Protein backbone atom coordinates (compact mmCIF):
# COMPACT_ATOMS: atom_id res chain seq x y z
CA UNK A 1 0.00 0.00 0.00
CA UNK A 2 2.88 2.42 0.71
CA UNK A 3 3.71 2.55 -2.99
CA UNK A 4 0.34 4.23 -3.53
CA UNK A 5 1.22 7.03 -1.06
CA UNK A 6 2.64 9.36 -3.76
CA UNK A 7 -0.66 9.10 -5.65
CA UNK A 8 -2.55 10.13 -2.53
CA UNK A 9 -0.17 13.05 -1.97
CA UNK A 10 -0.52 14.06 -5.60
CA UNK A 11 -4.32 13.98 -5.36
CA UNK A 12 -4.24 16.11 -2.22
CA UNK A 13 -1.91 18.64 -3.83
CA UNK A 14 -4.14 18.78 -6.91
CA UNK A 15 -7.24 19.43 -4.81
CA UNK A 16 -5.47 22.05 -2.67
CA UNK A 17 -4.02 23.82 -5.68
CA UNK A 18 -7.38 24.03 -7.42
CA UNK A 19 -9.11 25.37 -4.33
CA UNK A 20 -6.34 27.89 -3.72
CA UNK A 21 -6.35 29.07 -7.34
CA UNK A 22 -10.11 29.47 -7.47
CA UNK A 23 -10.16 31.28 -4.11
CA UNK A 24 -7.37 33.64 -5.18
CA UNK A 25 -9.17 34.41 -8.44
CA UNK A 26 -12.36 35.15 -6.55
CA UNK A 27 -10.60 37.57 -4.21
CA UNK A 28 -8.56 39.32 -6.88
CA UNK A 29 -10.94 39.57 -9.82
CA UNK A 30 -12.66 42.75 -10.89
CA UNK A 31 -16.39 42.77 -10.18
CA UNK A 32 -17.15 44.46 -13.50
CA UNK A 33 -19.97 44.21 -15.99
CA UNK A 34 -21.30 40.73 -16.59
CA UNK A 35 -22.87 41.24 -19.98
CA UNK A 36 -19.56 41.36 -21.80
CA UNK A 37 -18.42 38.18 -20.12
CA UNK A 38 -21.39 36.25 -21.36
CA UNK A 39 -20.61 36.81 -25.02
CA UNK A 40 -19.33 33.79 -26.94
CA UNK A 41 -16.16 35.52 -28.06
CA UNK A 42 -14.66 38.06 -25.74
CA UNK A 43 -12.63 39.66 -28.49
CA UNK A 44 -14.63 42.83 -28.87
CA UNK A 45 -16.50 41.81 -32.00
CA UNK A 46 -20.23 41.53 -31.66
CA UNK A 47 -21.71 38.15 -32.52
CA UNK A 48 -23.85 38.35 -35.68
CA UNK A 49 -26.14 35.39 -35.01
CA UNK A 50 -26.69 32.70 -32.44
CA UNK A 51 -24.66 29.51 -32.63
CA UNK A 52 -27.69 27.27 -32.81
CA UNK A 53 -29.08 29.09 -35.83
CA UNK A 54 -26.63 27.13 -37.89
CA UNK A 55 -26.82 23.44 -38.51
CA UNK A 56 -23.72 21.34 -38.46
CA UNK A 57 -23.62 18.30 -40.65
CA UNK A 58 -24.00 15.09 -38.69
CA UNK A 59 -21.19 13.75 -40.85
CA UNK A 60 -18.68 15.50 -38.64
CA UNK A 61 -19.57 13.13 -35.88
CA UNK A 62 -19.63 10.13 -38.20
CA UNK A 63 -16.19 10.95 -39.56
CA UNK A 64 -14.88 11.37 -36.02
CA UNK A 65 -16.16 7.94 -35.03
CA UNK A 66 -14.71 6.34 -38.15
CA UNK A 67 -11.43 8.07 -37.52
CA UNK A 68 -11.22 6.61 -34.03
CA UNK A 69 -11.75 3.09 -35.36
CA UNK A 70 -8.97 3.33 -37.90
CA UNK A 71 -6.77 5.18 -35.46
CA UNK A 72 -7.02 2.24 -33.08
CA UNK A 73 -6.00 0.03 -35.98
CA UNK A 74 -2.72 1.91 -36.26
CA UNK A 75 -2.20 1.62 -32.53
CA UNK A 76 -2.20 -2.15 -33.01
CA UNK A 77 -0.16 -2.06 -36.18
CA UNK A 78 2.70 -0.10 -34.66
CA UNK A 79 3.87 -2.54 -31.95
CA UNK A 80 3.36 -5.41 -34.39
CA UNK A 81 5.69 -3.71 -36.89
CA UNK A 82 8.32 -3.15 -34.20
CA UNK A 83 8.24 -6.79 -33.10
CA UNK A 84 7.68 -8.19 -36.59
CA UNK A 85 10.80 -10.38 -36.46
CA UNK A 86 9.85 -12.13 -33.26
CA UNK A 87 6.17 -12.59 -34.05
CA UNK A 88 7.11 -14.24 -37.33
CA UNK A 89 4.56 -15.93 -39.55
CA UNK A 90 1.99 -16.47 -36.82
CA UNK A 91 1.99 -12.79 -35.96
CA UNK A 92 1.69 -11.92 -39.62
CA UNK A 93 -1.35 -14.13 -40.10
CA UNK A 94 -2.97 -12.81 -36.92
CA UNK A 95 -2.49 -9.25 -38.09
CA UNK A 96 -3.89 -10.03 -41.52
CA UNK A 97 -7.00 -11.54 -39.89
CA UNK A 98 -7.35 -8.41 -37.78
CA UNK A 99 -6.96 -6.19 -40.84
CA UNK A 100 -9.42 -8.30 -42.83
CA UNK A 101 -12.08 -7.75 -40.17
CA UNK A 102 -11.43 -4.01 -40.29
CA UNK A 103 -11.53 -4.03 -44.08
CA UNK A 104 -15.01 -5.57 -43.86
CA UNK A 105 -16.01 -2.56 -41.77
CA UNK A 106 -14.32 -0.22 -44.24
CA UNK A 107 -16.09 -1.71 -47.24
CA UNK A 108 -19.33 -1.57 -45.27
CA UNK A 109 -19.13 2.15 -44.50
CA UNK A 110 -17.98 2.84 -48.03
CA UNK A 111 -20.90 0.99 -49.58
CA UNK A 112 -23.39 2.57 -47.21
CA UNK A 113 -22.15 5.97 -48.31
CA UNK A 114 -20.78 7.18 -45.00
CA UNK A 115 -17.70 8.50 -46.81
CA UNK A 116 -19.69 10.48 -49.36
CA UNK A 117 -19.45 14.16 -48.60
CA UNK A 118 -21.94 15.86 -50.82
Amino acid at each position, binding site marked *: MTSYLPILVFTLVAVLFLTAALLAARLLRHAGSASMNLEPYECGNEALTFAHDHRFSIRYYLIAVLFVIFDVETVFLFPWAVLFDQLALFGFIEMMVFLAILVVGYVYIW*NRGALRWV
Partner: protein
Amino acid sequence: MPDPQEFLLLAPEILLASAGLLLLLVGTIGRGLGNRHSAVVALASLFLTAIDLYAVGRSVPGSRLLFHGTFVIDGFALFWKSLILIATALTILLSIRYMEEAGYRAGEYYALLLLASSGMLLMASGYSLLTIWIALETMALASYILAGYFKRHLRSNEAALKYFILGALSSGILLYGISLLYGAAGTVQLGELARGLELARAQGSLLVPLGWILLSAGLFFKVAAVPFHIWTPDVYVGAPTPITAYLAAASKAASFAILIRIFYEGLGTLYGDWKWILAGVAAASMIWGNVAALIQDNVKRMLAYSSIAHAGYVLMGVLAASEIGLWSVLYYLLAYTFITMGAFAMVLLLERREYAGETCADYAGLAQRSPFLAAMMVIFLVALTGIPPTGGFFGKVYLFAAAVQAGWTWLAAVGVVTSAISLYYYFRIVVYMYQTDSAEATPVPLRAPALVTVITLCAVATLVLGLYPEPFIQIAKSGLLVVAGR
Protein backbone atom coordinates in the same frame (compact mmCIF):
# COMPACT_ATOMS: atom_id res chain seq x y z
CA MET B 1 2.67 -20.08 -31.27
CA PRO B 2 -0.42 -21.96 -30.14
CA ASP B 3 -1.18 -25.43 -31.34
CA PRO B 4 -3.16 -25.21 -34.63
CA GLN B 5 -5.53 -27.81 -33.26
CA GLU B 6 -6.68 -25.27 -30.70
CA PHE B 7 -8.05 -23.12 -33.48
CA LEU B 8 -10.07 -26.09 -34.71
CA LEU B 9 -11.72 -26.29 -31.29
CA LEU B 10 -12.55 -22.61 -31.60
CA ALA B 11 -14.03 -23.17 -35.07
CA PRO B 12 -17.74 -22.78 -34.11
CA GLU B 13 -17.11 -19.24 -32.88
CA ILE B 14 -14.91 -18.39 -35.86
CA LEU B 15 -17.52 -19.78 -38.22
CA LEU B 16 -20.35 -17.78 -36.70
CA ALA B 17 -18.37 -14.54 -36.59
CA SER B 18 -17.24 -14.99 -40.20
CA ALA B 19 -20.82 -15.63 -41.29
CA GLY B 20 -21.83 -12.42 -39.51
CA LEU B 21 -19.13 -10.42 -41.26
CA LEU B 22 -20.02 -11.97 -44.59
CA LEU B 23 -23.69 -11.03 -44.17
CA LEU B 24 -22.65 -7.51 -43.24
CA LEU B 25 -20.54 -7.25 -46.37
CA VAL B 26 -23.01 -8.82 -48.78
CA GLY B 27 -25.83 -6.76 -47.31
CA THR B 28 -24.29 -3.55 -48.60
CA ILE B 29 -23.54 -4.63 -52.15
CA GLY B 30 -26.22 -3.31 -54.43
CA ARG B 31 -29.61 -3.83 -52.85
CA GLY B 32 -28.36 -6.53 -50.54
CA LEU B 33 -29.64 -10.03 -50.09
CA GLY B 34 -33.10 -9.07 -48.95
CA ASN B 35 -34.80 -10.11 -45.76
CA ARG B 36 -35.66 -13.71 -46.47
CA HIS B 37 -32.34 -14.63 -48.04
CA SER B 38 -30.38 -13.03 -45.23
CA ALA B 39 -32.44 -14.98 -42.72
CA VAL B 40 -31.83 -18.23 -44.58
CA VAL B 41 -28.08 -17.57 -44.71
CA ALA B 42 -28.08 -16.78 -40.98
CA LEU B 43 -30.03 -19.95 -40.16
CA ALA B 44 -27.75 -22.04 -42.35
CA SER B 45 -24.65 -20.69 -40.64
CA LEU B 46 -26.21 -21.40 -37.25
CA PHE B 47 -26.88 -24.95 -38.39
CA LEU B 48 -23.28 -25.40 -39.55
CA THR B 49 -22.05 -23.95 -36.27
CA ALA B 50 -24.21 -26.44 -34.38
CA ILE B 51 -22.73 -29.35 -36.35
CA ASP B 52 -19.25 -28.03 -35.73
CA LEU B 53 -20.03 -27.62 -32.06
CA TYR B 54 -21.15 -31.23 -31.92
CA ALA B 55 -17.87 -32.31 -33.48
CA VAL B 56 -15.94 -30.24 -30.95
CA GLY B 57 -17.94 -31.79 -28.14
CA ARG B 58 -17.14 -35.27 -29.44
CA SER B 59 -13.42 -34.58 -29.69
CA VAL B 60 -13.13 -33.16 -26.16
CA PRO B 61 -14.46 -35.76 -23.73
CA GLY B 62 -13.73 -34.06 -20.42
CA SER B 63 -12.58 -30.51 -20.23
CA ARG B 64 -9.68 -28.87 -21.96
CA LEU B 65 -7.96 -25.52 -21.52
CA LEU B 66 -6.88 -23.69 -24.65
CA PHE B 67 -4.71 -20.70 -25.47
CA HIS B 68 -2.65 -20.62 -22.26
CA GLY B 69 -5.68 -21.25 -20.09
CA THR B 70 -7.80 -18.34 -21.31
CA PHE B 71 -10.38 -20.53 -22.94
CA VAL B 72 -12.04 -23.74 -21.86
CA ILE B 73 -14.14 -26.40 -23.51
CA ASP B 74 -16.17 -28.53 -21.13
CA GLY B 75 -19.68 -29.87 -20.73
CA PHE B 76 -20.76 -26.63 -19.08
CA ALA B 77 -19.63 -24.51 -22.03
CA LEU B 78 -21.14 -26.90 -24.56
CA PHE B 79 -24.50 -26.84 -22.79
CA TRP B 80 -24.72 -23.05 -22.89
CA LYS B 81 -23.47 -22.86 -26.44
CA SER B 82 -26.17 -25.24 -27.64
CA LEU B 83 -28.78 -23.26 -25.73
CA ILE B 84 -27.56 -19.98 -27.24
CA LEU B 85 -27.64 -21.42 -30.75
CA ILE B 86 -31.22 -22.65 -30.25
CA ALA B 87 -32.32 -19.27 -28.89
CA THR B 88 -30.66 -17.43 -31.77
CA ALA B 89 -32.28 -19.68 -34.36
CA LEU B 90 -35.70 -19.10 -32.76
CA THR B 91 -35.04 -15.35 -32.75
CA ILE B 92 -34.28 -15.39 -36.46
CA LEU B 93 -37.48 -17.31 -37.15
CA LEU B 94 -39.38 -14.70 -35.14
CA SER B 95 -37.74 -11.88 -37.04
CA ILE B 96 -38.47 -12.79 -40.64
CA ARG B 97 -42.01 -11.49 -40.91
CA TYR B 98 -41.42 -8.70 -38.42
CA MET B 99 -38.52 -7.26 -40.38
CA GLU B 100 -40.48 -7.53 -43.60
CA GLU B 101 -43.28 -5.41 -42.19
CA ALA B 102 -40.99 -2.96 -40.47
CA GLY B 103 -39.23 -2.01 -43.70
CA TYR B 104 -35.72 -1.55 -42.37
CA ARG B 105 -32.61 -2.93 -44.01
CA ALA B 106 -32.37 -6.55 -43.01
CA GLY B 107 -28.77 -7.53 -43.83
CA GLU B 108 -27.21 -5.77 -40.84
CA TYR B 109 -29.92 -7.04 -38.56
CA TYR B 110 -29.08 -10.70 -39.06
CA ALA B 111 -25.37 -9.95 -39.21
CA LEU B 112 -25.55 -8.27 -35.80
CA LEU B 113 -27.54 -11.18 -34.40
CA LEU B 114 -24.83 -13.60 -35.54
CA LEU B 115 -22.06 -11.40 -34.17
CA ALA B 116 -23.82 -11.06 -30.82
CA SER B 117 -24.25 -14.83 -30.70
CA SER B 118 -20.59 -15.46 -31.48
CA GLY B 119 -19.79 -13.20 -28.52
CA MET B 120 -22.12 -15.29 -26.38
CA LEU B 121 -20.45 -18.54 -27.46
CA LEU B 122 -17.11 -17.04 -26.45
CA MET B 123 -18.58 -16.01 -23.11
CA ALA B 124 -19.61 -19.57 -22.40
CA SER B 125 -16.04 -20.73 -23.01
CA GLY B 126 -14.10 -17.86 -21.47
CA TYR B 127 -11.77 -18.95 -18.70
CA SER B 128 -9.95 -15.71 -18.11
CA LEU B 129 -11.71 -12.63 -16.79
CA LEU B 130 -10.42 -10.56 -19.69
CA THR B 131 -11.52 -13.04 -22.36
CA ILE B 132 -14.91 -13.12 -20.72
CA TRP B 133 -15.07 -9.33 -20.66
CA ILE B 134 -14.15 -8.97 -24.32
CA ALA B 135 -16.72 -11.61 -25.28
CA LEU B 136 -19.31 -9.85 -23.13
CA GLU B 137 -18.62 -6.57 -24.91
CA THR B 138 -18.93 -8.27 -28.30
CA MET B 139 -22.39 -9.38 -27.28
CA ALA B 140 -23.33 -6.11 -25.62
CA LEU B 141 -22.26 -3.76 -28.41
CA ALA B 142 -24.26 -5.73 -30.96
CA SER B 143 -27.26 -5.83 -28.59
CA TYR B 144 -27.23 -2.05 -28.10
CA ILE B 145 -27.52 -1.54 -31.85
CA LEU B 146 -30.18 -4.23 -32.18
CA ALA B 147 -32.26 -2.65 -29.40
CA GLY B 148 -32.24 0.61 -31.34
CA TYR B 149 -32.60 -0.96 -34.76
CA PHE B 150 -35.91 0.75 -35.45
CA LYS B 151 -34.27 4.10 -35.65
CA ARG B 152 -37.40 5.99 -36.62
CA HIS B 153 -39.29 4.76 -33.56
CA LEU B 154 -38.82 6.87 -30.47
CA ARG B 155 -39.22 3.98 -28.06
CA SER B 156 -36.57 1.96 -29.84
CA ASN B 157 -34.20 4.93 -29.63
CA GLU B 158 -34.95 5.33 -25.95
CA ALA B 159 -34.30 1.64 -25.35
CA ALA B 160 -30.98 1.72 -27.18
CA LEU B 161 -29.76 4.84 -25.40
CA LYS B 162 -30.71 3.63 -21.93
CA TYR B 163 -29.28 0.20 -22.62
CA PHE B 164 -26.07 1.67 -23.97
CA ILE B 165 -25.45 4.18 -21.18
CA LEU B 166 -26.27 1.80 -18.34
CA GLY B 167 -24.57 -1.11 -20.09
CA ALA B 168 -21.39 0.86 -20.64
CA LEU B 169 -21.41 1.94 -17.01
CA SER B 170 -21.86 -1.61 -15.79
CA SER B 171 -19.11 -2.86 -18.11
CA GLY B 172 -16.85 -0.21 -16.64
CA ILE B 173 -17.68 -1.34 -13.12
CA LEU B 174 -17.11 -4.94 -14.14
CA LEU B 175 -13.72 -4.09 -15.60
CA TYR B 176 -12.77 -2.09 -12.53
CA GLY B 177 -13.60 -5.08 -10.37
CA ILE B 178 -11.51 -7.29 -12.64
CA SER B 179 -8.54 -4.94 -12.35
CA LEU B 180 -8.79 -4.90 -8.55
CA LEU B 181 -8.94 -8.68 -8.43
CA TYR B 182 -5.94 -8.81 -10.72
CA GLY B 183 -4.18 -6.48 -8.32
CA ALA B 184 -4.97 -8.81 -5.43
CA ALA B 185 -4.32 -12.19 -7.04
CA GLY B 186 -1.86 -11.33 -9.80
CA THR B 187 -3.81 -13.28 -12.40
CA VAL B 188 -7.07 -13.14 -14.33
CA GLN B 189 -7.18 -16.83 -15.15
CA LEU B 190 -10.10 -18.28 -13.20
CA GLY B 191 -8.36 -21.40 -11.89
CA GLU B 192 -5.38 -19.49 -10.55
CA LEU B 193 -7.58 -16.64 -9.40
CA ALA B 194 -9.35 -18.85 -6.86
CA ARG B 195 -6.06 -19.78 -5.21
CA GLY B 196 -4.61 -16.29 -5.47
CA LEU B 197 -7.67 -14.71 -3.92
CA GLU B 198 -7.66 -17.13 -1.03
CA LEU B 199 -4.06 -16.18 -0.25
CA ALA B 200 -4.74 -12.45 -0.64
CA ARG B 201 -7.81 -12.74 1.53
CA ALA B 202 -5.84 -14.48 4.27
CA GLN B 203 -3.48 -11.51 4.24
CA GLY B 204 -6.46 -9.23 4.73
CA SER B 205 -6.18 -7.48 1.38
CA LEU B 206 -8.89 -4.85 0.91
CA LEU B 207 -8.74 -5.31 -2.86
CA VAL B 208 -10.39 -8.72 -2.62
CA PRO B 209 -13.83 -7.69 -1.25
CA LEU B 210 -13.82 -4.46 -3.27
CA GLY B 211 -12.94 -6.36 -6.42
CA TRP B 212 -15.50 -9.12 -6.19
CA ILE B 213 -18.28 -6.77 -5.11
CA LEU B 214 -17.72 -4.56 -8.18
CA LEU B 215 -17.38 -7.61 -10.40
CA SER B 216 -20.62 -9.10 -9.14
CA ALA B 217 -22.43 -5.77 -9.52
CA GLY B 218 -21.54 -5.84 -13.21
CA LEU B 219 -22.71 -9.44 -13.51
CA PHE B 220 -25.99 -8.74 -11.72
CA PHE B 221 -26.63 -5.95 -14.20
CA LYS B 222 -26.20 -8.32 -17.11
CA VAL B 223 -28.62 -10.91 -15.73
CA ALA B 224 -31.05 -8.13 -14.72
CA ALA B 225 -31.21 -8.79 -10.98
CA VAL B 226 -32.50 -6.27 -8.43
CA PRO B 227 -31.08 -3.66 -7.65
CA PHE B 228 -29.36 -3.52 -11.04
CA HIS B 229 -32.52 -4.13 -13.07
CA ILE B 230 -33.67 -0.58 -13.81
CA TRP B 231 -32.81 -0.77 -17.50
CA THR B 232 -34.80 -3.96 -18.09
CA PRO B 233 -38.43 -2.78 -18.48
CA ASP B 234 -37.59 0.21 -20.68
CA VAL B 235 -35.25 -1.75 -22.91
CA TYR B 236 -37.56 -4.75 -23.20
CA VAL B 237 -40.55 -2.61 -24.07
CA GLY B 238 -38.75 -0.38 -26.56
CA ALA B 239 -36.61 -2.88 -28.43
CA PRO B 240 -38.02 -4.64 -31.49
CA THR B 241 -39.95 -7.61 -30.06
CA PRO B 242 -37.75 -10.39 -31.51
CA ILE B 243 -34.79 -8.61 -29.95
CA THR B 244 -36.62 -8.44 -26.64
CA ALA B 245 -37.05 -12.20 -26.83
CA TYR B 246 -33.38 -12.55 -27.73
CA LEU B 247 -32.30 -10.43 -24.76
CA ALA B 248 -34.60 -12.30 -22.41
CA ALA B 249 -33.48 -15.76 -23.54
CA ALA B 250 -30.04 -15.82 -25.17
CA SER B 251 -28.45 -12.81 -23.54
CA LYS B 252 -29.70 -13.88 -20.13
CA ALA B 253 -28.44 -17.43 -20.63
CA ALA B 254 -24.97 -16.27 -21.70
CA SER B 255 -24.80 -13.86 -18.77
CA PHE B 256 -25.74 -16.61 -16.35
CA ALA B 257 -23.07 -18.81 -17.91
CA ILE B 258 -20.34 -16.32 -17.04
CA LEU B 259 -21.90 -15.47 -13.69
CA ILE B 260 -21.88 -19.11 -12.64
CA ARG B 261 -18.40 -19.77 -13.99
CA ILE B 262 -16.92 -16.71 -12.33
CA PHE B 263 -18.62 -17.29 -9.00
CA TYR B 264 -17.84 -21.03 -8.90
CA GLU B 265 -14.41 -21.24 -10.48
CA GLY B 266 -12.94 -17.77 -9.96
CA LEU B 267 -14.47 -16.77 -6.64
CA GLY B 268 -15.23 -20.28 -5.40
CA THR B 269 -12.86 -19.97 -2.47
CA LEU B 270 -14.76 -16.90 -1.27
CA TYR B 271 -18.12 -18.67 -1.07
CA GLY B 272 -18.52 -17.70 2.57
CA ASP B 273 -18.23 -14.04 1.60
CA TRP B 274 -20.47 -13.78 -1.42
CA LYS B 275 -23.29 -16.07 -0.39
CA TRP B 276 -25.06 -13.37 1.62
CA ILE B 277 -24.91 -10.82 -1.17
CA LEU B 278 -26.20 -13.40 -3.61
CA ALA B 279 -29.01 -14.40 -1.24
CA GLY B 280 -30.03 -10.76 -0.81
CA VAL B 281 -30.02 -10.10 -4.54
CA ALA B 282 -31.99 -13.29 -5.23
CA ALA B 283 -34.63 -12.44 -2.64
CA ALA B 284 -34.90 -8.82 -3.80
CA SER B 285 -35.24 -9.90 -7.44
CA MET B 286 -37.99 -12.41 -6.66
CA ILE B 287 -39.93 -9.94 -4.52
CA TRP B 288 -39.54 -6.80 -6.58
CA GLY B 289 -39.84 -8.51 -9.97
CA ASN B 290 -43.10 -10.20 -9.04
CA VAL B 291 -44.61 -7.26 -7.17
CA ALA B 292 -43.79 -4.71 -9.86
CA ALA B 293 -45.19 -7.03 -12.53
CA LEU B 294 -48.57 -6.88 -10.78
CA ILE B 295 -49.29 -3.33 -11.92
CA GLN B 296 -48.01 -3.57 -15.49
CA ASP B 297 -50.53 -3.18 -18.25
CA ASN B 298 -48.13 -3.64 -21.15
CA VAL B 299 -47.43 -7.32 -21.73
CA LYS B 300 -43.81 -6.74 -22.79
CA ARG B 301 -43.22 -4.73 -19.64
CA MET B 302 -44.89 -7.40 -17.55
CA LEU B 303 -42.63 -10.06 -19.12
CA ALA B 304 -39.63 -7.83 -18.38
CA TYR B 305 -40.45 -7.78 -14.67
CA SER B 306 -41.18 -11.48 -14.82
CA SER B 307 -37.71 -12.02 -16.30
CA ILE B 308 -36.25 -10.11 -13.34
CA ALA B 309 -38.15 -12.41 -10.99
CA HIS B 310 -36.91 -15.46 -12.88
CA ALA B 311 -33.33 -14.22 -12.54
CA GLY B 312 -34.01 -14.30 -8.79
CA TYR B 313 -35.17 -17.93 -8.88
CA VAL B 314 -32.10 -18.94 -10.87
CA LEU B 315 -29.74 -17.09 -8.53
CA MET B 316 -31.22 -19.16 -5.73
CA GLY B 317 -30.01 -22.30 -7.51
CA VAL B 318 -26.58 -20.73 -8.06
CA LEU B 319 -26.44 -19.96 -4.37
CA ALA B 320 -27.05 -23.58 -3.42
CA ALA B 321 -23.61 -24.32 -4.94
CA SER B 322 -24.38 -28.03 -5.03
CA GLU B 323 -24.73 -30.50 -7.84
CA ILE B 324 -28.51 -30.43 -7.75
CA GLY B 325 -28.39 -26.64 -7.54
CA LEU B 326 -26.32 -26.37 -10.68
CA TRP B 327 -28.17 -28.83 -12.85
CA SER B 328 -31.50 -27.42 -11.80
CA VAL B 329 -30.25 -24.00 -12.90
CA LEU B 330 -29.28 -25.41 -16.27
CA TYR B 331 -32.58 -27.28 -16.59
CA TYR B 332 -34.52 -24.18 -15.59
CA LEU B 333 -32.83 -21.93 -18.11
CA LEU B 334 -33.34 -24.54 -20.80
CA ALA B 335 -37.06 -24.55 -20.08
CA TYR B 336 -37.14 -20.79 -19.63
CA THR B 337 -35.63 -20.23 -23.06
CA PHE B 338 -38.52 -22.04 -24.75
CA ILE B 339 -41.16 -20.52 -22.50
CA THR B 340 -40.02 -16.95 -22.90
CA MET B 341 -39.43 -17.32 -26.64
CA GLY B 342 -42.94 -18.66 -27.01
CA ALA B 343 -44.47 -15.90 -24.92
CA PHE B 344 -42.74 -13.19 -26.92
CA ALA B 345 -43.72 -14.92 -30.15
CA MET B 346 -47.34 -14.58 -29.01
CA VAL B 347 -46.82 -10.87 -28.36
CA LEU B 348 -45.32 -10.59 -31.84
CA LEU B 349 -48.24 -12.32 -33.48
CA LEU B 350 -50.78 -10.00 -31.91
CA GLU B 351 -48.72 -6.89 -32.52
CA ARG B 352 -49.89 -4.69 -35.31
CA ARG B 353 -48.52 -1.44 -36.69
CA GLU B 354 -46.26 0.37 -34.24
CA TYR B 355 -47.10 -0.69 -30.71
CA ALA B 356 -50.74 -1.70 -30.85
CA GLY B 357 -51.54 -5.08 -29.42
CA GLU B 358 -49.22 -4.99 -26.46
CA THR B 359 -51.59 -4.25 -23.61
CA CYS B 360 -53.36 -6.92 -21.59
CA ALA B 361 -56.69 -5.67 -22.93
CA ASP B 362 -55.60 -6.60 -26.44
CA TYR B 363 -55.81 -10.22 -25.35
CA ALA B 364 -59.51 -9.89 -24.61
CA GLY B 365 -61.57 -12.58 -26.24
CA LEU B 366 -58.59 -14.25 -27.85
CA ALA B 367 -60.10 -17.63 -27.02
CA GLN B 368 -62.94 -16.90 -29.45
CA ARG B 369 -60.80 -15.24 -32.06
CA SER B 370 -58.26 -18.03 -32.11
CA PRO B 371 -58.67 -20.96 -29.70
CA PHE B 372 -55.36 -22.44 -30.78
CA LEU B 373 -53.32 -19.34 -29.96
CA ALA B 374 -55.14 -18.83 -26.68
CA ALA B 375 -54.33 -22.40 -25.67
CA MET B 376 -50.66 -21.88 -26.56
CA MET B 377 -50.54 -18.70 -24.50
CA VAL B 378 -52.07 -20.54 -21.55
CA ILE B 379 -49.28 -23.12 -21.75
CA PHE B 380 -46.62 -20.41 -21.62
CA LEU B 381 -48.31 -18.55 -18.77
CA VAL B 382 -48.81 -21.74 -16.79
CA ALA B 383 -45.15 -22.59 -17.33
CA LEU B 384 -44.01 -19.12 -16.26
CA THR B 385 -46.03 -19.49 -13.05
CA GLY B 386 -44.53 -22.91 -12.46
CA ILE B 387 -47.58 -25.16 -12.55
CA PRO B 388 -47.44 -28.77 -13.84
CA PRO B 389 -47.35 -30.32 -16.37
CA THR B 390 -44.84 -27.88 -17.81
CA GLY B 391 -41.08 -27.46 -17.80
CA GLY B 392 -41.47 -24.41 -15.60
CA PHE B 393 -42.87 -26.56 -12.81
CA PHE B 394 -40.02 -29.04 -12.61
CA GLY B 395 -37.50 -26.26 -12.96
CA LYS B 396 -38.90 -24.46 -9.98
CA VAL B 397 -39.35 -27.60 -7.89
CA TYR B 398 -35.70 -28.56 -8.38
CA LEU B 399 -34.51 -25.01 -7.68
CA PHE B 400 -36.51 -24.81 -4.46
CA ALA B 401 -35.38 -28.30 -3.45
CA ALA B 402 -31.75 -27.35 -4.06
CA ALA B 403 -32.15 -24.21 -1.96
CA VAL B 404 -33.74 -26.12 0.93
CA GLN B 405 -31.09 -28.83 0.75
CA ALA B 406 -28.34 -26.22 0.97
CA GLY B 407 -29.99 -24.69 4.02
CA TRP B 408 -31.61 -21.67 2.39
CA THR B 409 -35.12 -22.54 3.50
CA TRP B 410 -36.17 -18.91 4.01
CA LEU B 411 -35.11 -18.10 0.49
CA ALA B 412 -37.09 -21.01 -0.90
CA ALA B 413 -40.06 -19.76 1.12
CA VAL B 414 -39.69 -16.33 -0.49
CA GLY B 415 -39.62 -18.09 -3.85
CA VAL B 416 -42.81 -20.04 -3.17
CA VAL B 417 -44.70 -17.01 -1.86
CA THR B 418 -43.64 -14.78 -4.74
CA SER B 419 -44.54 -17.53 -7.24
CA ALA B 420 -48.01 -17.49 -5.75
CA ILE B 421 -48.12 -13.72 -6.26
CA SER B 422 -47.06 -14.16 -9.87
CA LEU B 423 -50.13 -16.32 -10.43
CA TYR B 424 -52.20 -13.15 -10.33
CA TYR B 425 -50.57 -11.25 -13.16
CA TYR B 426 -50.03 -14.24 -15.42
CA PHE B 427 -53.60 -15.37 -15.04
CA ARG B 428 -54.93 -11.89 -15.57
CA ILE B 429 -54.13 -12.48 -19.22
CA VAL B 430 -55.82 -15.88 -19.15
CA VAL B 431 -58.93 -14.22 -17.72
CA TYR B 432 -58.81 -11.61 -20.45
CA MET B 433 -58.48 -14.28 -23.10
CA TYR B 434 -61.30 -16.52 -21.90
CA GLN B 435 -63.68 -14.38 -19.86
CA THR B 436 -63.75 -11.07 -21.67
CA ASP B 437 -65.35 -10.28 -24.98
CA SER B 438 -63.24 -8.74 -27.64
CA ALA B 439 -64.08 -5.49 -29.41
CA GLU B 440 -63.27 -7.15 -32.69
CA ALA B 441 -64.64 -10.55 -33.47
CA THR B 442 -62.49 -11.30 -36.49
CA PRO B 443 -60.32 -14.37 -36.02
CA VAL B 444 -56.59 -13.79 -35.74
CA PRO B 445 -55.12 -14.88 -39.06
CA LEU B 446 -52.26 -17.36 -38.71
CA ARG B 447 -50.49 -15.62 -41.55
CA ALA B 448 -46.89 -16.04 -40.43
CA PRO B 449 -45.93 -19.71 -40.74
CA ALA B 450 -42.50 -19.23 -39.14
CA LEU B 451 -44.08 -17.53 -36.14
CA VAL B 452 -46.73 -20.19 -35.67
CA THR B 453 -44.05 -22.85 -35.99
CA VAL B 454 -41.99 -21.22 -33.26
CA ILE B 455 -45.01 -20.92 -30.99
CA THR B 456 -45.96 -24.56 -31.51
CA LEU B 457 -42.39 -25.74 -31.12
CA CYS B 458 -41.92 -23.81 -27.89
CA ALA B 459 -45.22 -25.03 -26.50
CA VAL B 460 -44.38 -28.64 -27.32
CA ALA B 461 -40.91 -28.23 -25.79
CA THR B 462 -42.43 -26.69 -22.66
CA LEU B 463 -44.83 -29.61 -22.29
CA VAL B 464 -42.24 -32.28 -23.06
CA LEU B 465 -39.86 -30.77 -20.52
CA GLY B 466 -42.68 -31.04 -18.00
CA LEU B 467 -43.91 -34.52 -18.90
CA TYR B 468 -40.60 -36.29 -19.55
CA PRO B 469 -38.02 -34.26 -17.65
CA GLU B 470 -35.63 -37.21 -17.25
CA PRO B 471 -33.64 -36.95 -20.54
CA PHE B 472 -33.37 -33.19 -20.16
CA ILE B 473 -32.11 -33.55 -16.62
CA GLN B 474 -29.44 -35.86 -18.03
CA ILE B 475 -28.52 -33.15 -20.54
CA ALA B 476 -28.34 -30.58 -17.76
CA LYS B 477 -26.20 -32.96 -15.71
CA SER B 478 -23.71 -33.17 -18.57
CA GLY B 479 -23.04 -29.49 -17.97
CA LEU B 480 -21.98 -29.72 -14.35
CA LEU B 481 -19.02 -27.80 -13.04
CA VAL B 482 -16.84 -28.79 -10.16
CA VAL B 483 -17.83 -26.44 -7.39
CA ALA B 484 -14.68 -25.14 -5.80
CA GLY B 485 -16.22 -23.61 -2.70
CA ARG B 486 -17.77 -26.62 -1.02
